[in-house]
C-alpha cells in the first residue's frame, strides 16, 4: 500500500486544496494517469500518479485542504498481498485432491523437491469413518465361516498393522551365487553324517546375516521416538527366524547369532522350530530380536518382500536358490525402516552379505 501525499507544487506552497478527484476508489491507476486536480496559492494543477495500482481510499475529499506531505489517498500496489507459497504437487495429485476434497496443504510431499505425488495421497487418506453396525437385510451370499483370532493371530495382526501403517519403509534386493555355499553345506552335512547335525541353508544364512550385521551395526538397530527421536544401535545380535507354525506366524530368536557356530545355530533353530510346532515357545523365546530373516525358499518362492517386525529396524526376505542359468543364485530383499536406515547403508549391508554368501568359508570361520 502506498500513501499518496500532498505534493509541493510551487516554492511558496504550504498547503493545497483538492479540487477534483479523477479516480475513485477501486479504479486501476497507471503511471501518468491524472489522479487529482490540486489548487495551490498559484494555480490549479493536475497531479499524476507515479506508481501503478488500484486506488484504495481517498483521504481528503474534494474541497478540503491538506498540508504538504499529508496523505491524501492510498494506492494498493499489490505489495501487501501475502501469496501462499505454491504447493508442489503433480497434476494427478491436484485432480485427485479436487475430486476427494483433500487439502494439499495438509499433505507431506515425498516426491522430488518435496513434490506431492499420488503415493502421498494414498498414505494420508483418512480412514473411513466406522459405520454403525446394521443388521444385514439378507444373509451374506459369500457364506463366510468366521474364525476368531487366537492370541497369536491377534498379535500378528496388531504388530503388522502398526508396522505397515507407521513405519516408512523401502526395500532393496540383491542376489548371490550360492553354488559354493550349497557345496559347503553338503560337505558339512557329510562330515556330520554320524552326529545327527544337519545344517540348513537358512542356518548358514542366519550366521551370514549376523556377521553382516556386525559389520554394519546401523542395520542392527531400532527406532525410538524418545525426545526428538533416537536410533538404538544394539550391541547384541539376536536374529529372529520367521516360522510358519500351526498357530500362525511366530518369530523365535537365535540369540547372539554372530557368536554362535553354524552348528550351534542349526541346533538352536531346530529346537525353536520344534517348539513352534508343539506350541511350547515361551515369550522369552520370541523376545529381544534385533533383526529377522524370513525365508520362503523352501516353497520355491523366488523373490518377495517382508514387513518389518517392530521395533526391529529391518527384515530380510529370502527366496529359493535357482539356477541362472547353470549356477544357482539366491535372491534376498531387505525391508528397512527409513527413519533410521538409509538406502546406502542397506546397500552396503547387502553387499557384505553377498560377499559372505559367495565366500562361504568366511561364514563358518
Amino acid at each position, binding site marked *: 500500500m502506498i500513501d499518496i501525499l500532498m505534493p509541493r507544487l510551487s516554492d511558496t506552497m504550504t498547503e493545497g486544496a483538492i479540487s477534483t478527484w479523477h479516480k475513485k476508489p477501486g479504479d486501476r491507476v497507471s503511471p501518468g494517469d491524472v489522479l487529482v486536480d490540486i489548487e495551490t496559492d498559484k494555480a490549479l494543477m493536475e497531479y499524476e500518479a507515479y506508481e501503478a495500482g488500484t486506488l484504495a481510499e481517498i483521504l481528503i475529499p474534494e474541497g478540503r485542504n491538506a498540508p504538504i506531505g499529508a496523505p491524501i489517498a492510498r494506492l494498493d500496489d499489490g505489495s501487501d498481498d501475502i501469496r501462499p507459497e505454491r504447493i508442489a504437487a503433480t*497434476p*494427478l495429485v491436484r485432480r485427485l485432491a479436487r475430486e476427494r476434497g483433500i487439502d494439499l496443504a495438509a499433505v507431506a510431499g*515425498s*516426491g522430488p523437491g518435496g513434490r506431492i*505425488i*499420488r503415493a502421498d495421497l494414498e498414505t494420508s487418506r483418512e480412514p473411513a469413518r466406522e459405520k454403525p453396525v446394521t443388521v444385514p437385510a439378507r444373509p451374506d451370499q459369500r457364506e463366510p465361516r468366521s474364525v476368531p483370532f487366537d492370541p497369536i493371530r491377534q498379535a500378528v495382526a496388531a504388530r503388522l498393522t502398526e508396522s505397515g501403517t507407521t513405519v516408512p519403509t523401502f526395500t532393496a*534386493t540383491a542376489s548371490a551365487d550360492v553354488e559354493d555355499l550349497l557345496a559347503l553345506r553338503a560337505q558339512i552335512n557329510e562330515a556330520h553324517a554320524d552326529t545327527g547335525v544337519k545344517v540348513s541353508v537358512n542356518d548358514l544364512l542366519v550366521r551370514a546375516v549376523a556377521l553382516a550385521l556386525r559389520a554394519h551395526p546401523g542395520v542392527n538397530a531400532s527406532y525410538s521416538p524418545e525426545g526428538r527421536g533416537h536410533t538404538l544401535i544394539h550391541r547384541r545380535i539376536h536374529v529372529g527366524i520367521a516360522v510358519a507354525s500351526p498357530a500362525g506366524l511366530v518369530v523365535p530368536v537365535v540369540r547372539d547369532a554372530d557368536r554362535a557356530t553354524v552348528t550351534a545355530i542349526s541346533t538352536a533353530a531346530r529346537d525353536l522350530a520344534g517348539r513352534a510346532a508343539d506350541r511350547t515357545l515361551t515369550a522369552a523365546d520370541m523376545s529381544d530380536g534385533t533383526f529377522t530373516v524370513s525365508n520362503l525358499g523352501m516353497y520355491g518362492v523366488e*523373490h518377495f*518382500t517382508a514387513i518389518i517386525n517392530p521395533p526391529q529396524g529391518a527384515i530380510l526376505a529370502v527366496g529359493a536358490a535357482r539356477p541362472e542359468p547353470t549356477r544357482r543364485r539366491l535372491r534376498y*530383499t531387505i525391508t528397512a525402516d527409513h527413519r533410521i536406515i538409509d538406502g546406502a547403508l542397506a546397500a552396503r549391508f547387502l553387499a557384505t552379505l553377498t560377499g559372505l554368501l559367495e565366500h562361504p568359508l568366511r561364514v563358518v570361520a
Partner: protein
Amino acid sequence: MSVISYRQALHDALRGEMLRDDDVFLIGEEIGLFEGSYKITAGMLAEFGPKRVRDTPIAEEGFTGAAIGAAMLGLRPVVEIMTINFSLLALDQIVNHAAKIYGMFGGQARVPLVIRTPGGGGQQLGATHSQNIELYYAFVPGMKVVAPSSPADAKALMLAAIRDDDPVLVLENLALYNTTGEVPDHDEPAEIGRAAVTRQGADITVVAYSRMAAVALQVAARLEEEEGIDVEVIDLRSLRPLDRDTIVASVRKTNCAVVLEDDWLTYGIGAEIAATISDGAFDWLDAPVRRVAMAEVPLPYAKPLETAALPSAADAITAIRETLDAVARRRPS
C-alpha cells in the same frame, strides 16, 4: 507364420506387391544390378526386368521427381533412397511437391508414392550418413511417415504404404535389417496411423518407434525380470498421422511416461509426444515426462564416442527408474 528377417520381410512385401499390381515399380540407386545397398531388392531385376526395376544415376532430386510424376499419372512408384541422409537432396521434391500436389491443386491428382529409406546410426558411417531426420517429413502435412520396428510390421506397413493413395515415407533402420521375428504369411496391410501396445503394463508407459521400440521391449522384459517393474510399451509405428489416443489412454492408466527416440532431443519426436501427453493426460500425470534421445552433436565416427552419443538400453533403464522413483512406485515385487 514364418520367422524371417526384417530385410526379408521388406523384400517379400515389395515382391508381393509387384506381383499383385502391375502399376507398382521400383526406382533408385543401385537397386537393380547391385540388388540394393542393403539387398532389399535382391532378385527383383531378374524377376521383373529393367522397366519395373529402374536403376538411376546418383540424382535423388531427379528420380524422386520422376517418381512423383509417375504417381500423379497413376503408377505406384516405390523409391529407394539409399539412406535417409540422401533424401535431403530430394527435400524440395518431397516437401514441396509430393506432399502438396493433392491439396494445392484441388485434388486433381493423388500422389501414391512410397519412399523407402533407412535411418539409424551406430554403423560408423560418420555424421552425415548416420542421421535420424524422419522428423523433417513427419513435420509436413500431406506426408505420411511410418517406422516399423519388427519384421511383421516391416511387411504390413510396407504393404499399407504401397496401397495408400498418398505419399508415404517408410523409415527403415540399419540396425534392424538383420533382426528376425514371426511374420504372417498373408498379405494383410497394417493400418497407417495406428500405434501398437506391444506390451501391456501398469507401472509406466514407454513410447518409442523404429529401433528404440525394439529396445523398449528388451528393456521392459529385463526390468520385469530383475525388478518386477511392469512397463507398458507403445510402438508408434506411424509418426504421421500420430495415434495420440493410444498414447493418452496409456498414460492415463500408468500416470507416467518415458519417450525413447533415436533423433536429437531438442525439437525431436519426443517433444511432440510429451506435448501430446500434456494435452491429453495432464491431470493424470504424477511425474514429468522424460525423454531419452541422442546426444546433441553431429554423430562422431570413433566407435566409443558414437556409442556414447546414441541412446542405449541403459539410458532407457535409468530414465524409467528415475521416473518411477519420482512417483515412489519402484518396489521390487
